């Protein structure tokens, strides 16, 4: 019995290191317009069981610090799926890349190359990757960030 406990004592810290201190999930929704209670159309978010080109999507990224310590330098990075056109971040504090994550900045500061070596200001449709950063997430705290897209 003592040996077994000693074995568990050896095993447990390794298991604790391998445990998820933070959890992360991605959940996509499709926006649909349906008749509301007054008969006036309302916009609802549904599970993406029926999604066709041109429809609007909302991606919700949920996170939680389940560890005993604060999580610092917390950075969530989401490359926009290739069949989706980025249509704006819902949650504040996002920075963007239009070059696959090499450089980052607010959308107004980004530019994309055009023909003949010229460039133009970047638009939401040019965004390849979106990122949020939090200096610290206390133990037990969590939240979600979300962004919009349109199915190409």
């Amino acid at each position, binding site marked *: 019995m003592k040996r077994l406990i000693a074995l568990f004592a050896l095993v447990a810290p390794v298991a604790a290191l*391998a445990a*998820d*201190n*933070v*959890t*992360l*999930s*991605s*959940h*996509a929704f499709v926006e649909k317009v349906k008749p509301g209670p007054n008969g006036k159309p309302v916009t609802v978010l549904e*599970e*993406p*069981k*029926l*999604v*066709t*080109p*041109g429809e609007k999507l909302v*991606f919700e*990224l949920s*996170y939680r610090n389940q*560890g005993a*310590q*604060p*999580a*610092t*330098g*917390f*950075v*969530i*990075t*989401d*490359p*926009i*799926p*290739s*069949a*989706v056109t980025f249509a704006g971040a819902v949650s504040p504090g996002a920075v963007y890349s239009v070059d*696959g*994550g090499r450089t980052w900045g607010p959308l107004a500061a980004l530019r994309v190359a055009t023909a003949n070596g010229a460039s133009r200001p970047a638009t939401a449709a040019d965004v*390849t*990757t979106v990122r949020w950063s939090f200096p610290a*997430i206390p133990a037990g705290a969590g939240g979600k960030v979300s962004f919009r897209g349109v*199915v*190409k």
Partner: protein
Amino acid sequence: MTRTQRLLASASVLAAASITASPAFAAGTTSGTTITNTVTLTYNVGTVAQTPVNASDSFLVDRKVSFTVSEVGSATTSVSPGETNVVTTFQVTNSSNATIDVALAAGQLSGGTTTHGGTDDFDVTGVKIYTDSNNSGGFDAGDTQITYLDQLAADSSKTVYIVAAVPQGRSTGDVAGVKLTGTASEATAAGSLGATITASSGANVANQVDTVLAEANTANGNTAYDGIDFAFDDYTVLAAALTVTKTSRVVSDPVNGATNPKAIPGATVEYCIAVANGSGGAAATNIQVSDTLPAQTQIVAGSIKVDGTVTGSTCNSDGTAGGSESGGVVTASLSNVAAGSTRTLVFRVTVN
């Protein structure tokens, strides 16, 4: 849709973007494509960088079926009575995010106003549908008769012709209206028409491609979202309206000469056959005139003249030598008579 949380052993910060088709066309992402969003989280505890966490989530793009049948040319097709292979032109465009077959049917109006403002009052005959198989831009011998368009890819179009014949006896201004109807059909196998596509009924299922009928056209009596689209065109008759008038005058007689001549034996009589084409119609072509001389007369050799003119109801003495006489029958060809003009056949005979 699936939700997963996974711990990555590697230190890759930027997970690869999802591998999905990236369409550049209006039809959009191909039906059945999986859209996967992958998000990565990096963080530290204290000063120690932790293993990044990835999560991903996928769903399927469903099938949006939409196509248009539209009339090409914005004008009626002008036809002659009895003309064959008269063509009205349409275009069928597939804007679905999948390949479809399109079943085709040609129909005719029964009265009513046609698409270019005419009043439908006759039917063309022998109606067939063709496609511009050889991409020549017009209907020709290289085109194939069809009853459906096979395997029409997303964002592609085909030119389709309704080809028919015009009955004889129609007049200028008669109109035949025609209708081309397309029905979205499954593109199951090349070389055969698939079943009519229906919208998925019941609850939509994740991880299964559902179908939405999305064609929104309600012009000209179309119903939206029923997988059917149709357009109209018309044929308008432009006929020649010929009147033939035969007159005669006594030119001279042996007694009075040319002064008040009488139709006595030996007199010379000039016949004029005037072919007049009413205005507003088509030119008359390939005109053959034949006239049997009265038994008591003989042709004056060399007197036959064709393509003369009239002044009022009087035949002028112009015209050029032409035509022939044999066995008491004068035959001649006249040049084309344009709408609103007249040409004459003139010849002289002597009274036995």
